[in-house]
């Protein structure tokens, strides 16, 4: 599904990713764990096409197609979704309006008709209900005045509605209390199937208690330095990242 080969990335001349290799198969839930500053968020931004970064070498393939030359919205149309660590506020734009704009834009890219207002409302209400999102919140401007937990739930709602084949969750657990964490995890788990893949970026083991990964990658200094099963996460929880900070350079 997602293949990253020898990826080198700079921002303002500073090297962040150093020949990173990563493969996520269809149906797989892969976790990336790593200390602060290891380049985890950069990786998620580069995959989804944020402008500020310069890719100096390497490629990112989605279903075998190199997406590096694609605009962010084209990557979204190709089935890529990023749940932001810090979701953006869009003042004056009702959440419902935003969801509709996004769904319609993606339907258009597939040459499909827009959902009728009735179908759309039904779909959103159902998905929101599962995530414990109050319908009144959907009338409020997107993310404006939302709590940290509400913002993260809204990200998962968008993911649920857009149904991407490759979803990246960037520190979705940060700022969540345990109840919200569980709801968010259930939202992700509900979409696990052989056609969907997830890349879960996190600093802590906590989230992985709820979203059981198939694979865990350890990232340090812009590279994947170790790959294994869920047991790695537990090990990291105990021992911390110290050993990786020494030998990755």
């Amino acid at each position, binding site marked *: 599904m997602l293949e990253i080969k020898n990826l080198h990335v700079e921002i303002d001349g500073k090297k962040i990713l150093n020949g990173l290799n990563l493969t996520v198969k269809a149906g797989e839930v892969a976790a990336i764990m790593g200390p602060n500053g290891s380049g985890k968020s950069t990786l998620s931004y580069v995959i989804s096409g944020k402008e500020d970064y310069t890719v100096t070498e390497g490629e990112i393939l989605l279903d075998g197609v190199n997406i590096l030359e694609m*605009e962010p*919205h084209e990557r*979204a149309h190709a089935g890529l979704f990023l749940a*932001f660590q810090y979701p953006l506020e*869009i003042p004056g734009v009702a959440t419902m309006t935003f969801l509709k*704009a*996004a769904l319609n834009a*993606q339907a258009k890219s597939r040459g499909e008709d827009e959902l009728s207002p009735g179908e759309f409302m039904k779909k959103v209400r159902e998905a929101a209900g599962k995530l414990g999102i109050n319908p009144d919140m959907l009338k409020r401007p997107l993310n404006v005045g939302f709590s940290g937990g509400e913002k993260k739930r809204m990200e998962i709602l968008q993911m649920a509605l857009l149904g991407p084949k490759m979803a990246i969750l960037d520190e979705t657990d940060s700022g969540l209390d345990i109840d919200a964490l569980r709801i968010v995890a259930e939202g992700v788990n509900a979409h696990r199937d052989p056609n969907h893949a997830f890349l879960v970026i996190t600093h802590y083991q906590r989230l992985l208690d709820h979203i059981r990964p198939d694979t865990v990658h350890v990232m340090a200094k812009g590279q994947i330095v170790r790959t294994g099963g869920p047991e790695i996460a537990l090990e990291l929880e105990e021992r911390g990242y110290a050993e990786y900070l020494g030998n990755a350079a």
Partner: protein
Amino acid sequence: MPAVKETVETVRQIDVDQYKYGFVTNIESELAPKGLNEDIVRYISAKKNEPEWLLEWRLDAYRRWLTMQEPTWARVHYPQIDFQDLHYYSAPKKTPGPKSLDEVDPELLRTYEKLGIPLREREILAGVEPQNRVAVDAVFDSVSVVTTFKEELAKAGVIFCAISEAVHTHPELVKQYLGTVVPTTDNFYATLNSAVFSDGSFVYIPPGVKCPMELSTYFRINEQKTGQFERTLIIADKGSYVSYLEGCTAPKRDEAQLHAAVVELIALDDAEIKYSTVQNWYPGDKDGKGGIYNFVTKRGDCRGARSKISWTQVETGSAITWKYPSCILRGEGSSGEFYSIAISNGMQQVDSGTKMIHLGKNTTSKILAKGIAAGRSDNTYRGQVTAHRKATGARNFTNCDSLLIGQQCGAHTIPYIESKNASAVFEHEATTSKIAEDQLFYCMQRGLDEEEAVALIVNGFVKEVLQQLPMEFAVEAQKLIAVSLEGSVG
């Protein structure tokens, strides 16, 4: 979101630098000789067959104007205007004054049809619910060519006609109120307007009457080398209500044209006036050539207790905009509102805002201004809020937000706040933001392309103000905003 989609579609259909209303109507005009002197003032007055008092009023203004200096405090730059190189009067030849539709030159009717302003009542009546009807006063260059629904309005006691006509049919009202809000001595352009104003709309709503339909004036500048100086006077008598709309367009021309209007509103006890403007004068081309200089004085006087005046404006056109629709809050418990969206793109310059002058007790005002600057434009909000010594309990809330699109535009906020009464409470909030790259990226990550993302964010930014416009115009304004910002991205 259909509205956004529609705006984006509209944007696609129009090339950069394609002002939709830029056509010229080929019609023979009667022009005053170029230049300005007492004879020209007399010429205009004679054309209108005006009474002696009005001619004297004009001449007083003209003599005063000769002693005045063009103001330079606004943050706008333009070459010196040669006031002797303009025509101060231009009228389509065949229609000496507003008469019945049958007498209006068909070429003029076609012009307004092309602008989307239907003037034939029968056609309007065919497709529109009575409550959605809009009566129109169509002003073409210096004269009002026709006013619709006059009879129906007259049944409610509402007077809606060209001001040149009101001078003859209701001289007592004109004489009583003209120049009482914007005196002939007020400022350089208002004084010039007082000397040479040619036409405009007159509205009188009798006591206790809620005007049965929206009233509107549609201004069109057609002739070249012509200044347009219209004068609008609206009086809402005790306990009455009126909602009034103003629209404007002009042909594309390489030379800049001057538009110096004066609007006076008077609200007596418990009366309410809602005045909305969708200003779409030709903004000039992308290099700043041509366009309208929109130097306008608009002021409302809340003369009566508990009266209310509300200004809503969507400013997208003009090469230069210089206007501050204001409220004098004289009556006890009166209130003023100002809602504004000012958009500048290309080389446009906007210096606009409002004045809220609190004179009476317990007067309240609210200012909500949204400036959007794109291209190489400059966008300034300038606002004044003052409380007089006697304005006990005065309250103002001001919020002005600026949004920048791109790297080469500028936004400025210049508030003047002065209180001479310790009990007055004035609040001022201002923000300047760029459409954050992060916001755009966020929207695009969800599948919106860049234009759709900008349209969505901008519509969100101006939403509170758009909600103040009458429904039909809100949709129009939304489209207009998208078109004005077209080409601003990337």
